[in-house]
């Protein structure tokens, strides 16, 4: 469900205050359907707070917007049904087996019994870990866990998937494979909203926004931004903008 201009996320004047502290300060942006949107910013810039509002986890202090056509000010339940989410921390149950995790999250998102059984076979197969389906998740290497977590976040074919620093602590090879999965999901029409600290990953995004002190300092495709600031790579662009931060 998208707006008339093909935007799946539309945010206008979003502000979130905690007491006298303004975590997110009047930001506006939009995300087009099917693109990979990089949501960058230093630690404490307000990324996670903004993302929580987009996922329907908290309410904005002021401002409005829609995610997948549902208002962030009162249609949280519908938003939750249509998004996938993978958190910063590794977030599957380590003491449960691979197939039990699949069945649990499939069940939570209302998949039917037959569909669940199919997923329990097809997800490990597509990740090349058929032999591990009956092992507990804690016995998997971190990179595999992350890939499994991503597949499970996609289990109900959501229109948008939110990834909060999905590749933290993962080796470069696994990171590359992980981004192949992300690109594959985007090609299949899923919108990807991703936060990251790795600027080489920002280059894979269709468009990025850079948050500084709760505001969006700039937004555009990596090429546009590099051209605008006359820098060779995203790392330098990010440093140029992030050093203006006064908050920390």
């Amino acid at each position: 469900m998208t707006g008339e201009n093909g935007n799946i996320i539309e945010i206008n004047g979003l502000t979130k205050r905690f007491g006298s502290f303004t975590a997110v300060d009047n930001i506006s942006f939009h995300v087009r359907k099917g693109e990979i949107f990089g949501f960058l910013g230093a630690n404490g810039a307000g990324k996670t707070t903004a993302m929580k509002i987009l996922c329907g986890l908290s309410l904005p202090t002021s401002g409005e917007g829609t995610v997948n056509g549902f208002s962030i000010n009162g249609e949280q339940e519908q938003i939750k049904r249509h998004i996938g989410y993978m958190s910063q921390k590794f977030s599957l149950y380590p003491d449960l087996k691979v197939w039990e995790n699949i069945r649990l999250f499939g069940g939570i998102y209302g998949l039917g019994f037959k569909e669940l059984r199919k997923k329990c076979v097809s997800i490990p197969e597509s990740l090349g870990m058929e032999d591990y389906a009956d092992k507990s998740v804690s016995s998997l290497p971190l990179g595999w866990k992350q890939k499994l977590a991503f597949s499970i976040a996609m289990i109900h074919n959501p229109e948008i998937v939110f990834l909060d620093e999905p590749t933290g602590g993962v080796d470069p090879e696994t990171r590359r494979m992980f981004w192949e999965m992300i690109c594959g999901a985007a090609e299949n029409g899923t919108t990807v909203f991703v936060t990251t600290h790795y600027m080489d990953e920002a280059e894979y995004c269709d468009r990025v926004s850079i948050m500084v002190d709760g505001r969006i300092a700039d937004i555009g495709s990596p090429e546009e931004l590099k051209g605008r600031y006359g820098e060779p790579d995203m790392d330098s662009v990010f440093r140029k903008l992030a050093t203006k931060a006064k908050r920390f």
Partner: protein
Amino acid sequence: MKEFLSFTKKEFRHIFRDRRTILIVLVMPVVQIILFGFAISTEINNVRIDIVGDMTDPTVRKLVQRIDNNGYLEVKGIFTGTDVISERFRRNESDMAVCFEDDFDKKLDKKGSATVKLIGDGSDPNSAQIIANYVTGVISSGTGDGKKETTAGSPLPVKYMYNPSMLSSYNFVPGVMGLILTLICSMMTAISIVKEKEFGTMELLLVSPVKPIWIIISKAVPYFVLSTINLVTILLLSRFVMHVPINGSLLLLSAVSLTFILTSLGIGLLISVISSTQKTALLISGMGLTMPTMIFSGIIFPCESMPEILQWFSDIIPAKWYIIMVKKIMIEGAGFSFMIKEYTILLLMTLLLLGTSIRLFKKRL
């Protein structure tokens, strides 16, 4: 509903996968009942008595015989002076010395009274007091039925209506029930919720379409089942091993227990909202819940003999009210009309706890 089911299934899996915990949870009530039943006993048994006095005196001899014939007392040594007593205590060879004054029989004859002195090892004041009372009873009944009346007169006959043989198990079985239910429902629920917060999986559940209230309920269901199993274990053990009767209605007992389980779940939820790590949750429920429950609910120390301010404090411990009701039902066989006050207090506590914690839970997450 389907979401709820897959969630509850997951909670059961968590519990059954963790074999050590499940073992502890299922075995704990058995161990506690056995511990309280056989090890921690407030009854006196095998008390070692020393006698100081003139054994040629006929009344003294008769009294000593009486002490020696008593099943709980055992005469260990007979001395002529009190100077050896303290060494006997230090060597742990005796628990109490009974000292008769000289010319006991003559004085009793002439003045109508004679003095017996009891010297006890007071390092354990509780048992010393119990022993002293008991020995006093034995001696006074001994002097009373002889040829002369003592000034103390004959002791009053006492009958304990609901516990004729004064078994301590009548007191601790209801106590252990309260303790176990508090432990399982509050501590385990709190830890299982805080664990999700700590691992970050709670976030994942909250972005899912499952409503928070269902998350809470599905967390509670397995512990509810576990505590029911524990309750049945305790009741069977106490009935057939400890011989504690269940005089009242089993239905009423279940209803009261159910209410108390809800109270404990409310406490557990409150702890899980306050604490952000499992360690904190464990500490709060250990020090802030289990300890006060043991001390203030009347399992070990009677609330009536506490200073007034501590009695007020004991009133806010839900387990106290539950234990009072269980005693009334199991031992006295009382019906609901005898516990309206206690039940109302417990119910109000439950509603308050559940209401506050659910509101806080929604707000914090």
